């Protein structure tokens, strides 16, 4: 079984794109959530190894969700995947506890490289 990944994005289209990229590279998508609040809840329930999360979402955005997940699990491995690549947001996300930042639209290789980088940090 590949690394267990939780996808969090309010756009079902983007969740589908990420699911296809991950599945075709041997990763196991164990859950999906459409906002930050559901992401925190799902994280507690299924304990994924890596979380891919958007920033701008209804109910609870990505940065707040990252902070809440890190409160639950300080070793959580979270990668931001957002169309907003502004320097201040990247810094804020990394300070909140994210391990990497992918700017949409992405090449599939960028997603895989970010995951592999986070996986290597574990070793």
């Amino acid at each position: 079984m590949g690394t267990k990944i939780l996808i969090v994005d309010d756009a079902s289209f983007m969740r589908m794109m990420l699911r296809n990229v991950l599945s075709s590279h041997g990763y196991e998508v164990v859950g999906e959530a459409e906002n930050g609040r559901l992401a925190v809840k799902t994280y507690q329930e299924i304990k994924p190894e890596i979380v891919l999360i958007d920033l701008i979402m209804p109910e609870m955005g990505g940065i707040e969700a990252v902070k809440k997940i890190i409160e639950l699990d300080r070793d959580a491995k979270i990668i931001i995947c957002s169309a907003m690549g502004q320097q201040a947001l990247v810094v804020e996300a990394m300070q909140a506890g994210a391990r990497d930042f992918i700017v949409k639209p992405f090449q599939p290789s960028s997603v895989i490289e970010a995951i592999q980088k986070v996986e290597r940090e574990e070793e």
Partner: protein
Amino acid sequence: MDSSRLNEFYRDAFQELGNIGSGNAATALSQLVGRTINMSVPEVMIIPIERVPEIVGDMEETVAGIYLEVYGDVPSKILVTFPYKDLLSLTDLMLNQPVGTGSTLDELKLSALKELGTILSGAYLNAMSKFLDLRMIPSVPALAIDSFTAVLDTILAELSQENRYALMLRTEIIETETKISGSFFLIPEENALETMTAVIQKTSGVVDIG
């Protein structure tokens, strides 16, 4: 601020902002659909709100309008529109399906359209934020399929009565094979235009707005 006070220097600066944003947006869209995307040189206009319809043209055309708020240093509204007749071709491209095979706009395709608006807006905002060193954060996008009049009215109704002028930044997004075209509008809220010109003035060393 009105158009008469926006001298050539600032028009050039906003034009350059539009060029950079459009370049980023074209690159983003090209990556998303896997096709070559061309974008026209942006038109930058400072116009009274009431003149927006005459600039836009065919106000009764049915469009998909993806609109969102921009928070931060430059409160604004963004509208991205695509003609209704092009939506199926556009979503076919985004879903990597042969153009012309889609027949209905299902939930996945509507989601794809909203995501397209998010990504195009992100490309513009990232460029403008870097250029002006200002924080510009978008809201979750909303999608409406209606006449251009109805879509625009929704946005303009939320603008302050004090905001009598709109900075209209319009770019045509053109996919060369299917001839899909779309438009991008940025409408700053009250004082947002002043914030942007003040930053341009400060960073360029210009003394007088003129």
